[in-house]
Every structure is written in C-alpha cells, then in structure tokens.
C-alpha cells in the first residue's frame, strides 16, 4: 500500500462563538471529511472552544466559503500538511 500523502491538506482553527456556529460546524463535518485534531471528534465541539481540524485542499474551498458566509473567523494553522510533515525532521543525524 502506498503511504498516504497530505499535499495541500490544511489544518484550520475555528472558534465557534455560540450554538448556532457550533451547528454550522456540525453540518460542515457532516458534508465534508474533516479530521478533528482538537477536540478529537465533532461531538465534543462546543461554543467558545478552539477547534482544530484537518481538511483536504479540495474541500477547503467549500469550508472557507461556508465560514466566510456565516462570518466565522478562522485561521489556517498549517497550509500544506505534507511540507510540515517533512519539516518535523529538522534535526540531523548525529
């Protein structure tokens, strides 16, 4: 099996401000393949909680427009996950 690659995958941070924004997040999770980093599942997401999730580059566009439309602030923590995976090995062999 070929190893999984994460080219252009992003990690996004959102902080839903109220129950309405929580349910928007839940709908987004229903319609897209989101990998929740923190908390570790959508059912743990609550208002005022910092939520980090991974999303493919392709799905990010629809997520981004949904967040924009609903005036939900977001931050891109990691823009290209594959690059970050490679960068974590930043110590040379002794």
């Amino acid at each position, binding site marked *: 099996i070929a*190893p999984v690659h994460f080219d252009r995958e992003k990690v996004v941070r959102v902080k839903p401000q109220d129950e309405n924004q929580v349910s928007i997040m839940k709908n987004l999770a229903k319609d897209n393949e989101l990998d929740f*980093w923190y908390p570790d*599942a959508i059912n*743990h997401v609550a208002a005022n909680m*910092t939520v980090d999730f991974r999303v493919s580059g392709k799905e990010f566009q629809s997520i981004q427009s949904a967040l924009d439309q609903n005036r939900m602030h977001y931050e891109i*923590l*990691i823009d290209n996950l594959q690059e970050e995976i490679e960068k974590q090995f930043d110590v040379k062999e*002794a």
Partner: protein
Amino acid sequence: IPGRHSYAKYNNWDKIVAWTEKMVDKHPEMVSRIKIGSTFEDNPLYILKIGKKDERRKSVFMDCGIHAQEWISPAFCQWFVYQAAKSYGKNKIMTKILDRMNFYVLPVFNVDGYIWSWTQDRMWKKNRSKNHNSKCVGTDLNRNFNVSWHSSPNTDDPCQDTYRGPAPESEKETKAVADFIRSHLKSIRAYISFHSYSQMLLFPYGYTLKLPPNHEDLTKVARIGTDVLSTRYETQYIYGPIASTAYPTSGSSLDWAYSLGIKHTFAFELRDKGRFGFLLPESRIKSTCKETMLAVKFIAKYILRHTS
C-alpha cells in the same frame, strides 16, 4: 540493523526496541524489561522497570503513545528512562526518588498504530485491529477501558477515529496494560499518561463533570506541577479535570486507573498549542522533555511524601 537511536529525534519502533535492550544492558542494576503481552499484529508490548528489585516499594506507572500520531509522547518516555537511569547516584533528587520508588514505563502503548504512523499514515491515531463487519480498521485505545464505557458521546462507528471498540478491554493492548496494572496495584501509587497536544495537565474525571473525592489534592499537584514545568522555558500549561478543562470522554485510561484505586492519575497533553499540533519538530523535543521532566519529578516526590 535498526540504525542509530537519538533522544533528539523521533525514533521508529525498531530503534525503540533496540534502545530498550541497550538500556537494560547499560544499567542492569537499575533497568529491566518486562514483556506484558503482544499487540493485534503480534508486536511485543514492553515495559521498562526503573529502580531497585524490591517489589514492595511504591511505584509510578507511566505510559506513552496510546495515540499513534502523538510522536512527542514516546519521545518523552525514552527521555525519562534515559535521564532517570543516567542521573541515579549523580542527581540528588533522582537518587532519592529511585532509592524509594520504582517506575514502570511503557514507552509505546499503541505499537501497531505507531508503526503505521511511520510507514503508511502519519496522521493515524487508533490501533490496527480489524473490526467485525467493517472495512475500517482500529480502535481508540483511550476509549477502550472499562470505565463508563457504554456512555455517550462515544461512537459505535468503527470508521471514526474515536471508535471505542466492541467491548471494554476488547483490544489486546488495553487488556495487557490493564492486567499489568491490576497485578501491580499494591505498589502503584500514581498513573501518568502522556499525550499531545494542547499543553494541559489533566486529572479525573473525563466521563462526568463531577469532581473526584480528592480533587483538591489533585488540583494542588497539577497547579504546582504546571508551575514547576513553566520555570524552565516559561511554557504555559493549564490544568484541571478532563471533562471541564478539555472535553468529556469516557473509557479513558485515566478514569479507569482512578476507579481501580490509584488516586493520583494525571494526563499530560504536551506541546504545542496548535502551531505544529501533532507535527512538533524534532528541534523542540529536548526542551519539551526537559520541562516535562521537572513536573514528573515533582509528582513523584509528592507521591513519596503524601501517600502511604
């Protein structure tokens, strides 16, 4: 030949196995290796015991790498064993601790998942057991313990990252660890589990917002522990019960160990706070381990003084 082990780098499973052998060879009077079982894919589950031979002494059980993608966690367990063995007889505090208590360190709990995260999918979390009637693989071992296992919000969907398994202790890894802790319950005074990320020091409960009977004691240890941790690099940790500080979970090892009678159980969520998430660069391993070591030593000292 697994290649060179390094405390400043992430080590794959082969290197960690070779390292366990090396630690025993290098410190035979201080370190011993115990095979407590094997994984779904038949890899060995090793615990390193640090301390003198006396089984009646107080002990602390520590596990790392219950979630495969949290690589900083096994890195810390390796660092801890190395530092403890190396500094015995040289460092006053560590010598005092090891003269009176033992540590059982499980460097990688979820071995199959850890291997998978190195070879196939860096973001893999669960173990690698097959699920009946599903093409999806794996159980979240930190939801597979026999404590409030049936309660929501756990998922019954094997395709979810937080799948709790078909039954409590259904997984060979969970069962092996639970059996070991049960059989050493007389000596174990504290249980510490290492995770990443989000910089928290957590204690029970996760399955309810109720506070444990000794919550004042646990809060005090966590407060001082996080204070001590911050003295080295000013890394800020928050602390508190799992359910209110992080989010509610059930079937966790921490709550299970507490329910078994180990009244000092803690989980560290190590660095960072999201800049790197699960991909903490190797250049930050040493500083993360050094500051965490301070907190763990404090907890050990506290256990020595305040438990009977």
